[in-house]
């Protein structure tokens, strides 16, 4: 059963002749009756960056997990250096030279970088003691060879996301990986850091490593990869070399049609202030001040974008103005009424809707039906009979309207929300908040991790709300393209403050990126 082939050892002439390091033949993977991967054939050339793109649910991650030994294929075989390989688990694949950096990092927050890297692969002395010095030397050598710089003794939780990602990559290299799989590596990174990652990837390639790269961001694919495989509904819909590909060709290969990710914004005048925040200070769970003396306003019919590198206080800002977290000090004025205390319930009663970043924890209840999910918040004032009874007939109609208008793919409103895919769940949440006659919407990362078709749809719906219903929107996002496409005005957040205010409709991505990193600000001894 277990036929694991070590990569090291002399290469025969035959192996040199065919330089595909990894070959997949007829891989199939089923979950019940659902085929996550159907007859996948893939050849990966040694020393190249091979990208796998596709919408969410296209089967990219399933395929990568099969290569990395996390999942087992139901049919088909994997050839590593031309020889058949079967992996019992991820450790098996690791030993064979395949390492994977998961989208959600697999790091222990409270352990040092060194401990995180060597865990499971410690150099052991006399069969009992861990020889950390030897490991440290090896890691330092790897870092020097591939140009990574970080302190091995810091705790992982004190490192920025980009550096945590480097730690993951070094961890994979430490385990002698020849093939490195990166699952959506840029999803967590700001613009500048993406370039850093690409530099590292290029360096890995120059040292003879092979990189498999999954993403659904097309610009990056074109920039970094040599070969691009497009997946759709579980099968490979095409393979193309990066030189020949363009965003348009890739999108149509992915979606099967051309997607309009461009919005024509009506040029409206915004003057009436509907929401004003003054002197807001917010601490996080660890009592660290995350939002410092922040003031801003939102005008009627405006989309205000708030961008920043993750961890610069946007989360706490949103939590404070939605009432999910108590602010240290500051006030909010809604339609001329000054509120000393912000509560989510009062917000809802005032018509302030909220689309949260965490769809599963805050945005829905997976065991509850779509109906129960869709009326949440709206039930406070509507869909009641004699105040104490719920009007479930009305709720069903309300939900069916959301399902139809927002194209939520489901059998019926009584199905549990847990049965929806990520994109459909998000459409349901967006539909809910947009259908509750809200006047102000606080929208956080509305398109994270969902496919292009759904992104296009949600963007258009946001614009429709603003232009047709006169709704005002605060859009907090980590996706710069999204912020630039939708916002009338962008506030760049850095270290708990707004570093810069920019006015649309045209924005310069590099300029915003610079402000996000704290650039362009008068140095205040920081």
């Amino acid at each position: 059963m277990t036929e694991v082939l070590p990569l090291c050892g002399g290469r025969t002439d035959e192996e040199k002749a065919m330089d595909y390091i990894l070959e997949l033949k007829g891989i199939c993977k089923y979950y019940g009756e659902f085929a996550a991967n159907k007859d996948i054939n893939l050849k990966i050339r040694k020393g190249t960056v091979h990208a796998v793109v596709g919408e969410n649910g296209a089967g990219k991650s399933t395929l990568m997990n099969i290569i990395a030994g996390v999942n087992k294929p139901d049919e088909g075989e994997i050839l590593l250096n031309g020889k058949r390989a079967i992996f019992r688990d991820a450790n098996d694949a690791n030993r064979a030279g395949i390492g994977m950096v998961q989208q959600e990092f697999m790091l222990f927050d409270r352990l040092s970088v060194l401990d995180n890297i060597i865990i499971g692969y410690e150099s052991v002395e006399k069969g009992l003691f861990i020889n950390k010095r030897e490991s440290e030397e090896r890691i330092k050598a790897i870092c020097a060879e591939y140009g990574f710089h970080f302190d091995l003794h810091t705790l992982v939780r004190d490192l920025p996301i980009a550096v945590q990602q480097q730690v993951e990559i070094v961890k994979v290299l430490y385990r002698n990986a020849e093939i490195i799989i990166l699952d959506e590596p840029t999803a967590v990174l700001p613009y500048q850091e993406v370039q850093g990652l690409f530099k590292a990837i290029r360096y890995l390639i120059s040292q003879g490593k092979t990189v498999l790269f999954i993403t659904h961001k097309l610009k990056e694919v074109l920039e970094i990869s040599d070969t691009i495989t497009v997946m759709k509904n579980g099968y490979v819909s095409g393979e193309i070399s990066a030189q020949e590909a363009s965003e348009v060709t890739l999108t149509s290969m992915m979606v099967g049609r051309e997607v309009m990710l461009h919005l024509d914004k009506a040029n409206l005048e915004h003057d009436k202030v509907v929401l004003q925040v003054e002197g807001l200070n917010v601490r996080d769970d660890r009592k660290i001040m995350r939002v410092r003396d922040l003031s801003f306003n939102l005008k009627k019919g405006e989309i205000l974008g708030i961008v920043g590198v993750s961890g610069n206080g946007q989360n706490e800002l949103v939590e404070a103005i939605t009432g999910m977290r108590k602010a240290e000090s500051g006030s909010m004025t809604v339609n001329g009424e000054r509120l000393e205390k912000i509560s989510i319930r009062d917000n809802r009663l005032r018509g302030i809707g909220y689309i949260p970043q965490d769809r599963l924890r805050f945005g829905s209840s997976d065991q509850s039906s779509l109906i129960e999910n869709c009326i949440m918040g709206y039930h406070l004032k509507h869909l009641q009979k004699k105040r104490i009874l719920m009007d479930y007939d009305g709720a069903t109609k309300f939900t069916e309207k959301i399902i139809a208008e927002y194209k939520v793919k489901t059998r019926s409103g009584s199905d549990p929300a847990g049965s929806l895919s990520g994109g459909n769940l998000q459409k349901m949440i967006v539909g809910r908040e947009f259908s509750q006659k809200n006047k102000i919407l606080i929208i956080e990362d509305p398109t994270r991790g969902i496919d292009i078709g759904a992104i296009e749809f949600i963007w258009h719906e946001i614009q429709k709300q603003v232009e047709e219903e006169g709704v005002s929107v605060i859009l907090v996002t980590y996706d710069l393209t999204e912020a630039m496409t939708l916002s009338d005005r962008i506030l760049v957040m850095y270290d708990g403050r707004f570093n810069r205010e920019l006015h649309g409709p045209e924005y310069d991505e590099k300029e915003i990126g610079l402000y996000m990193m704290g650039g362009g600000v008068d140095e205040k001894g920081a």
Partner: protein
Amino acid sequence: MKKGRSIADAVLNYLISIVLAILVASILIIIQGSNPLEAFKEMVLGAVGSKSAIASSIRWSTPVIISATAAVIAQKSGINNLGIEGQIYFGAFTAAVVGAYVQGPGVIVIPLAVLAGAFAGLLYAVLPAVLKLYWNIDEMITTLMLNYAAIQFTEYLTMMLMGLGSDTNPDMIATPEIPEAARLTQIMPPYQASTAFFIGIVLVILVFILYRYTRIGYEWKMIGRNKDFARYGGIRHFKNYLVIFLLSGAVAGVCGALEILGPHLRFRTNFSTNMGWDGIMVALVARNNPIAAGIVAIVWGMIKAGSLSMERMTSVNRILVTLVQALFVLFITLDFKSIFKKRSIGRKGRNR
């Protein structure tokens, strides 16, 4: 289609659990040197075999129905009220005192005693609720510990009330018997089954209506399924948590009160035969569905009645039945389908 399948899965789960429980019981009975078939026969006869058997089933179902309702109210909203037993004690003690000392016609004294019991159960739930809300102390621990305090404390109150000394025979520690007027009507005289059974059924229906049709029921259900989402939706957490907890305590208090006004007629320490825990187990078996809890509670009462009769008629000990009931609860919490699946597929990837 999917819904039909999930109901079928649930039924399958119950059947497998029953078969496993009976199997374990049979083995234990054989080890004790008795005939399992004979024991089961006596159990069935003891539950439904005669008028007295049916009365006994109703008598033992009653407290379980009500305490299960108390458990459903708490657990449906994710509150672990393990203090139902203690709340029953306070409800029972208070109702016994009111019933024994307030003079008047039954239509006044009985409701008064029941309400007093409910209020006492409610009060005894205030402490863990407040500890949880203000200091985030786990209610699972506080309610559990407060059960022991309740048993001791009501015993102390009884001794104080009756002027008893510490050298009193434990069996003598009891409140005075409540007068004829304050007793619940027996529905099948001379047996102990009383109108409390109907009160239990009414409670089950009320709780069913609460969750099925009312706004507050919707909110409470949603709190239990995802309290962060409920908060996000503008549902007041603090207020609702307190109300749910206290309501659960009040229903438990009613359970204790009716137990005194019906069969017991006086408060005696250790009068409760674990009925609070039975309620929690029934709610667990019924997956917090109020109607299902009512039905399971009746079955629970029948098993209890049957086991009492079995103990009289055969040499099998009643404790065995309690043991098998507990095993049944254990089995029911297992998801057999997924266990079989895991076996056949092996390690399944967690891909979402």
